């Protein structure tokens, strides 16, 4: 079947199978930044934005984004790079496998929360697992990015 969506700011028609998850569709269309780390919506690696809200694409039927705006990190390269610079300067991307989903969540948080406290930051990002970095360096990078050091 076909659905229409706005994918990374472009109106596109996607060919999907009815039971396909969005993460698989996006990868199939070459958006390889979308990663998966679990089968149980636990890790946050597959995070994309649907109408600007961070959403787990591994457990969202592709069908459901019909008529909606879907954004992957490929669609916000400028903004993502700005934060990624700070993350990388901290050394807080290790294997990097979790980074795209994590960065999208951080950017969404910046749009959503005004002057978040450390607790709020940690709470917002709890669903984004990272096995490599130990989270501390990511937090330092976020604080720099938000100017809340």
């Amino acid at each position, binding site marked *: 079947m076909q659905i229409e969506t706005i994918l990374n700011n472009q109106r596109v028609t996607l060919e999907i199978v009815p039971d396909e998850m969005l993460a698989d569709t996006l990868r199939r269309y070459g958006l390889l930044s979308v990663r998966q780390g679990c089968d149980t919506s636990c890790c946050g690696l597959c995070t994309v934005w649907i109408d600007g809200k961070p959403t787990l694409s591994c457990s969202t039927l592709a069908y459901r984004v019909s008529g909606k705006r879907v954004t992957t990190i490929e669609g916000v390269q400028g903004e993502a790079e700005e934060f990624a610079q700070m993350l990388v300067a901290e050394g807080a991307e290790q294997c*990097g496998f979790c980074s795209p989903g994590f960065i999208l969540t951080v950017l969404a948080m910046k749009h959503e929360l005004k002057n978040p406290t450390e607790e709020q930051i940690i709470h917002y990002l709890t669903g984004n697992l990272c096995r490599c970095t130990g989270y501390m360096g990511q937090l330092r990078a976020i604080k720099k990015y938000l100017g809340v050091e």
Partner: protein
Amino acid sequence: MRVVGKGIAKIDGLSIATGKPAYTEDLAAANALVIKILRSPHAFAKIKTIDTAEAKKLAGVVCILTHKDVPKVRFTLAGQSYPEPSPYDRLILDELVRYVGDEVAIIAAVNEKIALQARDLIKVEYEVLEPVLDFETATEHPSMVHPEDDLFCNFDTGLIKEKNIASSQKVEYGNVEEAFEQCAVVVEETYYTQAQAHAMMETYRAYSYLDPAGRLVVVSSTQIPFHVRRQLARALQIPASRIRVIKPRIGGGFGGKQTTVAEIFPALVTLKTGKPAKIIYDRRETFTCSSCRHAMRIKVRLGADADGTIRAIDIDALSDTGAYGEHASTVVSLVGEKTLPLYNKTKALRFVAHAVYTNKMNAGALRGFGATQGTFAVESTVNKLAEALKMDPSEIRLQNLIKAGETCLPYEGKLLGSSSLHRCIQRGKELIGWQEKYPGKDLGNKVRAVGMAVTMQGSGIAGIDTASAEIRLQDDGNYTLLIGSTDLGTGSDTILAQMAAEVLETPLENIAVYAADTDVSPYDPGSYASSTTYVTGMAVVKAAEDLRQQILQRGAKFLESIPEEVEFDGKIITTLDGTKNIGLEKLAYLSVLGAGKCQLVGHGTHGSNVSPPPFIAGFAEVEVDKETGQVNLVDYVAMVDCGTVVNPNLARIQVEGGVVQGIGLALYEDVRYDQKGNLLTNSFMQYKIPCRKDIGNITVGFEESFEPTGPFGAKSIGEVVINTPAPAIAHAVYNAVGVRITKLPITPEKVYMGMYK
């Protein structure tokens, strides 16, 4: 130093962080066959019949392979230098299945859906056997996990298959019983450390195809490309010259990808069908059918004089290696090897260890590699000894720990090259506020307390693992560094480039790094055993120095001088009298232009006959809820001696990441089975790795030392960082509520039951 010691950003950092295609799955061809594995539902069974006829009829199924279709040569999947000390106890597919999840059939189809449908259509009849599930009684169990006649080990590691023993070992220095008799105080305890999952974010995956010359190319998320090639050659019974293994970026490993897990399946399918094939393990498969940390029972006896001088240590370790013996003997040996040298006033030491087969998923390498288990047991016992002697646990350590220039019984006269562990303890105590906080403070329904532990690891495998590196001077004066090690995300590619840049006095941007393709890279055993910075690093330094010499020689020739009379500042080769010079760029293109020329390539190969230990002093501050037994980690301080810190930012993240993994082991993570041998913790819902809310605050500091055998004085850091959280947190919990947790993880339930029993 200009480049070494600087917190330079990772050379590939920005690109991997922003999601550029760089990992195995990103590179697989769209038309690759999709592979799924039919797995055993029984912990121990013999396959009586397999019927694949129905499955094969399904449109889109390309091949289905069972034990009848594979070579019958046993091998090991342990990523170790040949000849491996791990038993050759595997077949690609065996008639006997040895754990729930063991491979029964390989299915390749044009897409995932069809592969899964076909899997459901295969009919297997099993003769179910009595499984060995409890590792403590495995040696007496009537079932033999490996009854086969062709079970084989390259070395005598004490394998006794009739008793399900994969390895047994014993070392003794001095007379242990006599030494204990002379001790004023003897303490003893038995500990259990649980199996731990690696839980790297990128699950196991591999992709294969035939190149135009008909050679098998395997792209894999692996830490050990050269070992994978060798294992494939043996398992598939084809010459290694027909195989090329390429490692792209990998999404975490932690030792899990030091064991070959998935590569054989696509490789076999590609060989049989001529078509590209890929396999992507899902998370459940990764939890259920790869490997985990060896669960152990460790008994420690410690004896000391009345003044706190530790005189005798006796360790008895039993390790659960699961269905296959990957790293069975080597992991358990580190329980003693990385704990006994720490306390060097001893008169006698003994270490006895067994690793046993059971019908559970095989254990393998995991960051810390036995030292983690040993550290928990020995350090917990040292804390118990301090209490028995009414001494401050930090003081008893300062009094007994080995120092640089000293030796200890296991070192047999060799001297320790470097250590700042005493300084690490002093500084760590300041940072955690030991003086004010030790042992603890009752706050009403909560108690706050502190605890500590120290640890060591090694740097590379002494006398065995040897790495090579090459640096080419390219036609336009820049360099290409070729290495065979795997950057697990730790930044080792960057660190190695920093070392080359230092020697060649060039900016980091001038060095391109190409890592880990068995056709292109010089040999490297792979990234494990904390060896990359130390062993491969030294190979890189040697290669860079070699190239530097060649540049001087070639430059001198062009300047009609001799190498001793010219100098090179990274850009220009100048005669000492300053009269003549030639730029590197010009030298570079002249080296590849015209007849009789020769491109300059520096080579370096390095193996070390020592494995210098990095050290850590770890301090935990916890808050324990007396009403629930809940333990909250408030603060963790890790003071690290990794020799020269080559890149402070990357080193710091390594420590923070490793500490959090150690916190996971201490408080949350536990690989659990039901009574039939089914893995219960097969998703992130049941298997809890720490999330952001679970870790409290972590403070990391470095006390640099200088390791004379390391590149620029560096030692390793990757593994040592995971070892101290468990014993330090257990100690803090004891100081808080008087409950001595000897069985990890430290759950609220255990603490609560301990308080009110």
